[in-house]
């Protein structure tokens, strides 16, 4: 019984020491930092996904139509 209590106390001490030591560690906050290279998450391009389903041409055409609609001379004449 005494030996059992002793081993339990020893396990507790070891766990506590390990937990306290873990606080001393420093983990890198940024994945890979290479000078001059983007280190953030990868982005999806506007034509990928939802509306255009990867059709770059359709996206470009939609954008071109919108841009040209900004010319009010073309709309009123």
């Amino acid at each position, binding site marked *: 019984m005494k030996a059992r209590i002793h081993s339990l106390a020893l396990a507790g001490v070891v766990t506590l020491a390990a937990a306290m030591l873990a606080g001393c560690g420093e983990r890198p*906050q*940024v994945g890979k*930092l*290479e*000078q*001059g*290279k*983007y*280190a*953030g*998450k*990868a*982005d*999806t*391009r*506007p*034509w*990928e*996904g*939802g*509306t*255009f389903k990867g059709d*770059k041409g*359709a*996206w*470009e055409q*939609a*954008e*071109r139509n*919108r*841009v*040209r609609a*900004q*010319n*009010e*001379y073309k709309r009123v*004449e």
Partner: protein
Amino acid sequence: MARMKFLCDAERCIECNSCVTACKNEHEVPWGVNRRRVVTINDGVPGERSMSVACMHCSDAPCIAVCPTNVIYQTEEGVVLHDKDGCIGCGYCFYACPFGAPQFPNGPAAFGARGKMDKCTFCAGGPEENGSQAELEKYGRNRLAEGKLPLCAEMCSTKALLGGDATEISDIFRDRVLRRGKGVEAWGWMTAYGKDKEEAK
């Protein structure tokens, strides 16, 4: 696809601030952050000029060069975006930007804490899944992925603010300048909208 740019026609901007309002509403931008603002020179004096200013999505953006965590990037379309998860709120991008575009939600608070940088995204969201809730919460709406243009430009009542492919908006502006001619009026309707087609003949 060439580069996405903004172009503000100072002859037409009437300082209505609808671009500012549209931006704040569309992206649910918090208090204290203005991704876009209208600057007026010689306010109240005849000949005053106003200009809508936001991130200019520079071709060689100084904010990208100075970011210590390298989380600012440029997309294929030339839009300058950033990953908020890696931003440490150091404010270097704000010091580097000649237009004061990077904004910080907490301002310089205790111990210099500013919060994560926020800026105009050209309505292109950020590095999250297109149209996702995470993208909306962090960066605002992704109108570009919907085949639309930035709302500030599309909302502009006088079409002073143009947004989109640089060559296309340059063509629109060039057309405008040709219609205006030169020396008609220093300031006013004719300068902003040009002569009537019949009158110009």
